[in-house]
């Protein structure tokens, strides 16, 4: 589904050329749950932007669902971002003035097809366990709930792949676990996920680990015994469902 071959990315500032990605190759198949790990400056955000169609590689090939993303125009990239990719951001990026339901409906504004957007959005909110909070503004939700709204927004277009950039980065451990539990459930249901993180404990919830170091892939291996977020939540001192307000 994702095919990356010898991908490079340079940033040019004046006469100084910075090589951020120095030839990366991997593929992600349907139904995989991949964690891409690396320390800051390793190029993981750049890779994420390219995978998400927000940035273009300098060299190499990136095919998503058979489409050559390096050659796609702005219009096509917009369409692909809308239909095939679901973004989950570290800072959630919710519209403050719109309630949870409206936030989840946002990608549908740019989607084809009719039918009730509200019904689809409600279904997506139910998937992340927030059906009851659809009328709340982001400010009225906890960080964990805000990120779950973000996940619902990524799911509402039924994308090919979920791209999550440090999805637990702004959350405390417990809320982070809840997000990871949702990801693991989505994976069991057959969704494809790529998650970027700098935290091995987070990465170990995935089924495969790609380690980036200095713009190259340092390691690419399956995680044979992934951590189970739901178990961790059950064993949480305060018990399940007692997350911060």
């Amino acid at each position: 589904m994702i095919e990356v071959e010898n991908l490079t990315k340079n940033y040019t500032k004046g006469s100084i050329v910075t090589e951020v990605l120095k030839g990366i190759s991997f593929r992600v198949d349907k139904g995989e749950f991949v964690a891409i790990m690396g320390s800051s400056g390793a190029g993981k955000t750049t890779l994420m932007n390219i995978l998400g169609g927000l940035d273009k590689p300098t060299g190499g090939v990136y095919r998503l669902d058979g489409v050559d993303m390096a050659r796609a125009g702005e219009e096509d990239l917009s369409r692909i971002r809308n239909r095939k990719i679901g973004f989950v951001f570290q800072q959630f990026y919710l519209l403050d003035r719109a309630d949870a339901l409206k936030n989840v409906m946002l990608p549908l504004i740019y989607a084809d097809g009719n039918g009730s957007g509200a019904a689809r959005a409600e279904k997506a909110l139910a998937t992340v366990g927030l059906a009851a909070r659809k009328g709340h503004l982001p400010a009225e939700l906890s960080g964990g709930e805000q990120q779950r709204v973000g996940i619902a927004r990524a799911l509402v277009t039924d994308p090919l792949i979920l791209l999550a950039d440090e999805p637990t980065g702004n959350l405390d451990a417990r809320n982070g676990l809840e997000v990871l539990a949702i990801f693991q459930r989505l994976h069991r249901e057959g969704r494809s996920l790529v998650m970027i993180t700098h935290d091995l404990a987070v990465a170990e919830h995935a089924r495969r680990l790609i380690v980036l170091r200095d713009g190259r892939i340092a390691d690419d291996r399956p995680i044979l015994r992934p951590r189970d977020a739901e178990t961790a939540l059950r064993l949480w001192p305060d018990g399940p469902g007692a997350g911060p307000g």
Partner: protein
Amino acid sequence: MHFARNTRLSCRLLAAHKLRTLLSLAGVVVGVGAVILSVSVGRGAEKRILDLIGKLGTDLVIVNAAPARLMIGRQRTVATVTTLTAADGRAIAEECPHVLAVAPAVRKSLVVRWESNNTTTAVTGMAADGFLIRNIPLASGRPFEADEDRARRRVAVIGPTVAKNIFGKVLPVGQQIRIGRVPFDVIGVTRRRGLDANGTDQDDIVLVPLETAMRRLLNIPYIETIYIRARGSRWIDQVEREVRALLRERRRLTEGRPDTFTIQNQMTLLKTEREAARSMTLLIGSVAGISLLVGGVGILAVMLISIRERTREVGLRRALGARPRDIRIQFLVEAALLAGVGGILGVMAGLGATRAAAVLGFRETLMSWPAAAIAFAFATTVGIIFGIYPALRASRLEPIQALKSE
């Protein structure tokens, strides 16, 4: 893009920023309101002049004894000239074929007394036909007649302002007043007519028979004015020519010498007034139009600020699949919404201000719906035009940079 869905969301987001949205609207509201108010007041003035034309009749020609002088852009007659006589009036009545009726008149400001009350007012001596020619209706009593004029009877018809000033609540008809030192019987009161085009109170008058005025009151052999009614308003220019030719002949004015009298064609006079009122309306209207443009700049400023604030929203929308074109449309729609709502509020403000101006008696006003429609359309257009630049800027934002911005 789902246009309606996005527009609903835009409305919600704009409504959430109440103060900012209202501020951006203020300019447009004031602009549209000002256009409507100024045009309504201007049209009120125009209507007043048109009403005057109707009241006076459009077939009225006035000859004045003095030659015309142009003062402050208007025709004025000056000084006392003694060359116009009642004989001129008779000659016009007899010799000009398109003249229906003629009423010579004199006028002087005199003190009028009743018991211990007195007032200074314009006393007009005029032939009995003057009531008909000048279209002066009576509220009570009767006008004087040609016989009374010939007999130099001391009878007077007074205007309501004079009646109020010297009689208060006493019924004037049947009372005896003194004009100067001469006693007169009040036989009628004119109907209220209000101000004329020059702002003179047409109710502050006393009308007496011409002969009475000339021989018993003023002791003069000449007259000042001849009121002439044409056989129809289409003959008005013809009458003016005939009267001019006759008067010039009677004065033996050779070709090339100027008139020693003035002929005013009431219709042309009022048309000029109307033109003046129109251009005034246009002037005030355009000033208000400029303020509308300034209102558009307000929208521009607020849109630019809002884009700065909403850079991350733009980045997010781009990441979620909005094309640059979708972002452009969104911001254009928002600008149009702002301007449209501002326009509607402005129309309401203009209506309110127009009504308030009428209630306060500031001016006669006439609500102009075409002006309201034009002002509204203009406001919306200005809003959209001033929305183009912010919309372009928003659509050119790079999604990654936009998302990262704080």
